[in-house]
C-alpha cells in the first residue's frame, strides 16, 4: 500500500477551504496549519499564467524528517504515511529543519505536528478532510498500488510534477498540470 495525493492545479481556485477544513477536523489551533496554498504568477500583463497549489506534507518515501528524529517520534506508518507520536517527541526541531517543504511546525503543546493524511478518517474508509471538502473537487487521495484508485488513475491520465525532487525526498504529492 502506498498512499498518495494528486492535486489538480487546473481546477484549484486557491480558496483555502482545504486549509480551514483541516484545521477544524484535526483541531489544529488557530494560527497554525498543516496545509497551505501557494499561488504562482508568471509573465507580464496581459500575458499571464497563474497556478494554485494546495500543499501539505509530501509523505516522502525517503523522509529526512524521519531519519533525523532522535527519538523515533517521527516514523512511517503502513501505507507510507509519515506521522509523529506526540509522546515520543521532545520538540528538538530537527525534523522541522530537515523538511525541505516546511511542512511541520511545533504545536503549542510542545510536540511537532504535521499532516497525517487524516489517517483516522482513512482507516474508517473515509477520505481526508481536505479532499472531502474541496469545492472544486481537485484533490484525489488513494493507494498508488491500487491501479483503480482515484489517484492512480489521475497520475496515469495526466501530466504531473512533483516538488523539489532534487532534495531527494521522493515526495508523494503529485501536482497535475
Amino acid at each position, binding site marked *: 500500500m502506498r498512499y498518495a495525493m494528486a492535486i489538480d492545479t487546473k481546477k484549484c481556485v486557491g480558496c483555502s*477551504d482545504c486549509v480551514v477544513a483541516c484545521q*477544524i477536523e484535526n483541531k489544529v489551533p*488557530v494560527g497554525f496549519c498543516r496545509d497551505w496554498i501557494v499561488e504562482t504568477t508568471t509573465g507580464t500583463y496581459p500575458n499571464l499564467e*497563474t497556478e494554485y497549489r494546495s500543499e501539505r506534507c509530501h509523505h516522502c518515501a525517503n523522509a529526512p524528517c524521519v531519519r533525523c528524529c532522535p527519538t523515533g517520534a517521527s516514523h512511517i506508518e503502513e501505507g507510507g504515511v509519515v506521522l509523529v507520536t506526540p509522546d515520543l517527541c521532545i520538540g528538538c526541531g530537527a525534523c522541522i529543519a530537515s523538511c525541505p517543504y516546511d511542512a511541520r511546525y511545533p504545536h503549542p503543546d510542545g510536540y511537532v505536528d504535521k499532516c497525517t493524511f487524516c489517517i483516522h478518517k482513512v482507516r474508517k474508509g473515509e477520505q481526508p478532510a481536505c479532499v472531502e471538502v474541496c469545492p472544486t*473537487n481537485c484533490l484525489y487521495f488513494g493507494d498508488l498500488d491500487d491501479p483503480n484508485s482515484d489517484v492512480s488513475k489521475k497520475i496515469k491520465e495526466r501530466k504531473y510534477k512533483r516538488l523539489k525532487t532534487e532534495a531527494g525526498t521522493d515526495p508523494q504529492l503529485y501536482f497535475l498540470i
Partner: protein
Amino acid sequence: MKTNRRNFIKISGAGIGTAAIGSSVFSWANGDLLNSAIPTPTFTSKTPTYCEVCFWKCAGWVTKDENGEIWKLEGHKDDPHCNGRLCPRGTAGVGMYHDEDRLKTPLIRVEQNGKQVFKKASWSEAFKVIGDKMKTIAKEYGPDSMALFTHGSGGKFLGHTLKAYGSYNITAPSFAQCRGPREVAFISTFGEGVYSPERTDIRDTRCLVLIGSHIGENMHNGQVQEMSEAIDKGATIITVDPRFSTAASKSKFWLPIKPSTDIALLLAWIHVIINEEWYDKEYVEKNTFGFDQLKDHVQTFTPEWAYGITTIEPKVIRETAKEMANASPAVIVHPGRHVTWYGDDTQRLRAVAILNALLGSWGRRGGFYNPDKVSIPDFPHPPYPNPKHTWKDAADGKFDLATEVVSNALVDATIPNENRDWNIKGWIVNGTNLIHTLPDQERTFKAIEALDLLVVIDTMPMEITGYADVVLPECTYLERYDSIRNSPHREPVISLRMPAVKPKYDSKPDWWIAQQLGFELGLDEYFQYKDIEEVLDWQLKKVGSSLAEMQKIGVKKLKREYDDLYFLEGQENLFNTNTGKIELYATDLANAGFPPMPVYTEHAQPQPGFYRLNYGRAPAHTFSRTSNNPNLVDIMPENELWVNPKVAKQWALKNGQYVWLKNQDEKVSTFSIKVRITERIRWDSVYMAHGFGHTQKKLSRAFGKGASDTELISNVMYDPAMGGTGMRGNFVTILTEKPETVEAS
C-alpha cells in the same frame, strides 16, 4: 430617549468582560483538547442546518464532539447548492458561533452625564422602548414611516411584523447594490429573472463566458463546483475582466478589457453573431421579438469600433464570438451577480440577455435551465393593512423599473426634504451593515441622523450597531430555527435549519424577536402560534413533509410540477413579457423612456496620478460578516492593495508596504492597506477585496485591518432604470505617508 444627533457609540460594558482574555484563550482552546495529533471522534450528534455565511445557503450538518461543543460543519450530500462540500466560509461557520466579540445582550442608548452610552437591557425593556417609539411613529407620521433593511434569513419574520404594523418599506442590499440590474434586464428580456441560485446550467455547458464575474473568488459554492466540473469536461471558458482573476487563469480566452467598456464589447459580439449569421436562427425566429430592429441597431458596432473603446483586438472578438456560436445552445454568457458598476448596468445586462437569446441558451441544456420550486404557504394570519406610502412616493418617478424595493431610495426618503410631506422616521436594520454596504457614506449618515428610531439586529458589534438606539443580539444560525429554505433549482428542494446548540449569552433568534415585537405592538392576531416549530411543521406538512422528517434528513428534493428543466423540441413558449416573446427590443424599457436596445456610454477614466478603484470578493470572506471570524482571519487577516509593477515603480512602492488612499473627492482611507505588487492588475486600476477596514473597535480581530472600499466610493452612478448604485466610477491616488485623519471611533 431624545437623541437626534446620533453619535457612534462604542459598545462597552456589554456582556461579560471577555475582551482581555478572549482571543488568546480561544486560540489555544482547540489545542488543549487533546495531546494527540489524531482526533478521536466520538461525536454525539448531527443536526441539519443551512449556511448563513453568505446568501447561497448551502445545506449541511453540524457535528458536535463528545463535550457537546460544535466540532465541525459539513455539506449535505443531497443538496444541489453544495453537493456535500461547503466553501471555506461555510466550513469556518463555527467561528461565527465561537466569536467572543459577539453581541451578548440587548443594549439601549441612554444619556449619562451628558454622554451617550449603551446600557445593558433585558429583552422586555428593549421591546418596550422599540414598541413605544414605533407606536408614536405610527400615530404621528403613519406606520409606513418605518422601514426595514434586512439581508439574510430572518428577514421573512421581521418583514411579517412590519407588514402587519403597516409598512411595505422592506428592502435588502441584494437588489440595488447587487443583482438588481440583472433581474430587471432579464425580466425585461425573458419575462423572468435569473434568481438565486442562478439558473445557469454550468455543469453541462460547453462554453462559459464570464464578464467580470469572478467565480472562484466569488465562492458561490454551486457555481464554483459546476465550473470545475465544466473544466473537467473540457468546456471553454472566456473571461472578460480587466484584472487577471482566478477564473481568467482557468480560461482559454482572457479578454483584458479596459474597465467600464463592456457594453461596447457586447455590442460587437452581437454584431458579429448577427452579421455572420451565427445565431440560433430557428430559436430566434420562433421565440424573439425585435430581431430586425436589433440588427439595424448594431450595424455600426463593428469589432473594429469596439477595439478603439475596449482595447480588445477585433480578431479576438470574432474568435470568441465563434467559440460561443460553436457551443450554442450549450453556452452561458453569465450575467454575473454584483452588477451595479457604472450606472448603465441594466443596459449592459440587457446586452448579455440578448446575446444569450441569440445563442439560444435560455431554457436549453448547458445554458439557462428552467428552475422550479414548491410554494410554501404562509402560516395563516389576517390580511395586512394597506400602507399609504411606499418608497416610490419619495422617488419622484425615478427607478420605475425596479422590481424590488430600492434600499438607497429608502435612504433618500429618510433624509428630510421640503418638497415631500412624507419622510421615513424609523429603521429596523437586520443583518446588514449599512455603513459598509451602501456607497456614499455621507448620505447614509445624513439619513441616520434624521431618524427617530434606529433598531439594529445583528450578531456582531458592527459599524451600524454603533448608531443604533436599540441593539438586539441575534443568535447565530447554528443556534436557531429559521424559515424553510425553499430554493428554485433543477428540481424543487427544501432544507431545514435547526439549532445545534442553545443560543449563547442572551441572544435570540429573529423569529422570536419578530413575534415578541408583534406582541409589543399589539399585533397578537398575526402571531397565533406557540413557537416556530409549530409554524414549520404546519408549513412542511403542506408540502408533503414534516418537521420531524426534516430534522432527520435535513434536505428534501421534491417533484417538479410546473414545467420541464429545458424547453422541449417543438414546444410553444410563452414568455412573461409584453409581447409574450423574448424581447430583443424591450418594450417596457421603451415605455419607460429608456433605450429599448443597449447603447454604449463613455465613462470617465482616471486622471493622471489616479487609479480606478476596483474591488471584489476574496474567497475566504463574506464582506463584513466574516472579517472577525477567528478561523477566517487566520486565512486572510486583511485585504491588500493590488498594484501593477509599473505603478509600484513609479511610486517607489515595496511589497508589503502600507499606504493610504485618497479618492477624487478628497476622501481619505481611515486605515492603511498593504501593497501587493502583482502583474494581475492593470496599470490604470488598483484592486482590493471588499469587507475590510473596520472602524468598530469591538471587533477585536477586524478593527483597523486593511482598508474599506466603501469609504472611497463617494461617487455613485445611479442606474436611472432601477436605482442600482454604480460603484466603480471612483478613482484613488496613493499616499505613502500617514495622512491627518479623524480618529476612528
